[in-house]
């Protein structure tokens, strides 16, 4: 798979505030990257730099091999960016709105008509096309902006918090749209501070906190990385609980143990290898567990453990 977007050591300051600190990651074609971080972490700033709207103080972003610094126009041709906040013109219908941007993107004659039909079909906006934008719901507006972003058939899509403010139904619709986009071979970067909808769509994630990228990789990799830092194991043994408790506390990596249901809950630091060794040593001590289950960690927990839960 070819790389569609690569962020190369981007740094951006606003006065004294270091909004993005040497961020690097990349997205391949057909991939959906979840860009997660709490509010104020620097997601929007990074995305605006990728979209040529802001300039990095240092570093560069390559979109399909074109630098946002030296080739902004070529970048804009290949990139669809959906800002988190955007305005819509008053007294304009969906049709007219899309027609305007299609013209602005330089679509002419029939190719414009065809593209407009296509995006209206894709986002299911056709039945509403004569409605005024000001009369649309948040979900509809989001779909409209997505339709607008698709007009020039960009290879790379950047969506800044597209799910914010949507009801569950609209979220599911959005998720399907995003999956369909990736299915078309587009690289999609989608940011959020709410994770539930991202964990189901993205193939890779980049976690950002206070301007620093603190984890990147596939969803599984990042979960492992988080587990490497911190995880919980539920242990139940037929042996005396006090004895097991004391034995566990002597093991490397165990930070705390507390009774939980009919067994013990162990807070544990370290990767899977260390976990295997823990099990082995319990067995060797004759405290054979009949239940030894590391907690299933989902993206939400990863996020909390990586970002110290600084959600505002």
């Amino acid at each position, binding site marked *: 798979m070819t790389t569609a977007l690569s962020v190369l050591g981007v740094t951006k300051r606003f006065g004294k505030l270091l909004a993005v600190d040497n961020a690097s990651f990349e997205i391949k074609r057909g991939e959906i990257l979840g860009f997660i971080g709490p509010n104020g972490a620097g997601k929007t700033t990074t995305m605006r730099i990728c979209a040529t709207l802001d300039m990095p103080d240092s570093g560069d972003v390559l979109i399909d091999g074109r630098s946002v*610094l*030296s080739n902004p*126009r070529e970048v804009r041709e290949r990139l669809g960016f959906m800002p988190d906040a955007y305005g*819509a013109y*008053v*007294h*304009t219908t969906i049709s007219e709105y899309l027609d305007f*941007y299609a013209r*602005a993107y330089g679509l002419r004659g029939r190719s414009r*008509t065809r593209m407009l039909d296509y995006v209206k079909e894709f986002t299911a906006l056709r039945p509403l096309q004569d409605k005024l934008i000001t009369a649309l719901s948040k979900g509809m507006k989001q779909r409209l902006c997505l339709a607008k972003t698709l007009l020039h058939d960009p290879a790379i899509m950047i969506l800044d918090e597209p799910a914010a403010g949507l009801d569950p139904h609209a979220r599911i619709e959005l998720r399907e749209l995003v999956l369909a986009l990736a299915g078309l071979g587009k690289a999609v970067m989608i940011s959020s501070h709410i994770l539930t909808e991202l964990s189901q769509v993205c193939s890779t994630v980049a976690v950002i906190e206070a301007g620093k990228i603190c984890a990147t990789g596939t969803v599984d990799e990042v979960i492992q990385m988080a587990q490497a830092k911190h995880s919980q194991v539920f242990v139940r043994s037929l042996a005396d609980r006090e004895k097991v408790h004391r034995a566990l506390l002597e093991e490397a990596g165990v930070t705390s143990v507390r009774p939980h249901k009919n067994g013990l809950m162990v807070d544990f630091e370290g990767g899977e290898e260390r976990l295997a060794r823990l099990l082995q040593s319990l067995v060797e001590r004759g405290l054979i567990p009949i239940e030894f289950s590391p907690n299933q960690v989902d993206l939400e927990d990863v996020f909390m453990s990586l970002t110290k839960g600084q959600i505002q």
Partner: protein
Amino acid sequence: MSEIEADGVQGNEVEQAPLMERLSDRLSPILVKEVRQAMRGKYFKITFWITLIMATLVGLGVCLEGVSGSHVDENLGRGFFIAQFACLIVATHVLVPFSTFLSMGGEWDENTWDLLVLSNLKPRQIVLGKVLSGGVQALLYYCAFGPFLVFAFLLHGIDLGVLFTSLVVSFIVSLLLSCLAVAMSCFGQGKFTRVLLMVLLTAALVWTAFGTGVWGAGMMFRPGMLHDTEMLEAIGAGLTIGTAIAAYFFAAACSRLAHPEENRSTGLRAMSLLVVLSGLAWMSWVLGSRGRNEELLFGACMSITFLFVTSIFYSTEQGRLGLRVAVTLPKNRLLGWLALPMLPGGMRGLIFYTLSSLMVFCWMILHPLLATGSLPFRNGQVWIPLMMMGTGFIYLGFPGGLLSRYLSENWGRMTARIGVVALFIASIFLPAVLGYLIDLRSWAVWEHPLNLFMNFEYLWDNDLEFGAGVILMLVLLAITVLINGPRTLAMVKEHKKALAHRRWVLQQQAARDAARQQPEAQ
């Protein structure tokens, strides 16, 4: 409706569409959007109907007044026309440009600006679209006023030539004012700045509307004027200068809208040159084979003053070439260095000022030489433009050079710009005030050594001699050059580096292309 039917209808549309589609494709997308929004917006609807109602009422008033008099004479037609023309001017010179001001501002207020930029529209297209939409709105007014104007014509006493000229001229002026309005809207987005800009714009619009109205009325009462060459020359000169100024504002708007790392200066500098060149060309044409010293000096000094004023901005730009400027440098080394004065950057701005002023000086020498074969200047008059250029150099170079390290900051640029004006005021007025206070008569009447303009007056009647005034000027010039030394060095270094880097990038590209083509060939 079944799918087949729908297809059929669409198919027909596609068959018929091409001509209309192709026509509308030629239009600026912004224009299409702007006109649609304006037509539907409250502002246009309300002002349009109010203007028409006002015109009707005023027209009725004029008619009643005329009819109640003893006899219906040709003045009735004129009075009626002037009343209508006044209403039309208010609409096209004040209301329409103001609406383009609001619509440009709306792109920021309503958060649609980013989407426009992303759609890859160039600032030029955006500004032009807004200006043209002002033109379309003005045209609508002209159409709506058509019946009134025809009625005025039927009342007799109206010269068709004057009617036509005044309508055409007022339409062009309306377009130029829309240009000004859009540009002013780009100059600031802060609340306070916007209010200030609005006040300034309103003043400019009302003032121009008043001027056009009075001019139209004057013409109506003396239609013979239209056949006067001087009147035609005046209209020509007015429109040329107006267009040049509007074009300058247009370029300024485009450069304000450009990305900070993009080239925000070359277009403006080119426009400055164009304004000066068109002014000089106009002068040359009017002077013809004449070559009077006052006229030539007036032309040269006005041009240099204009260059000085615009260079207040150029000479205080940040020294660093923007990231997106460096990649647009000419590939050729020689061209790269020749382009230097036109590129953004404070020191380059100072060089631009110097070279373009020298060009003006050359015009002043060459025009009489070519036209009459001799120079009409007495005494040291020929040195006046050069003295003026040097004086300007000092005023521009001092603050910019001192603050050169801070010009990359907003406040630094503002301080340097205000500094030029402040220095000017301080050096001319303060000694005069001081002279008044300490009872030094010659200083109090501006004859103090810091008033470099005294040199000009002296040169008018006397030969150039290296008296105290000239020496002071030369010393100040030397100091200014010294102050600007560091940033000149930095500029040369950066320019060298940028050119080298540009060539390096191109070589890399060529190598990559070659590498890509080789496997294909095999």
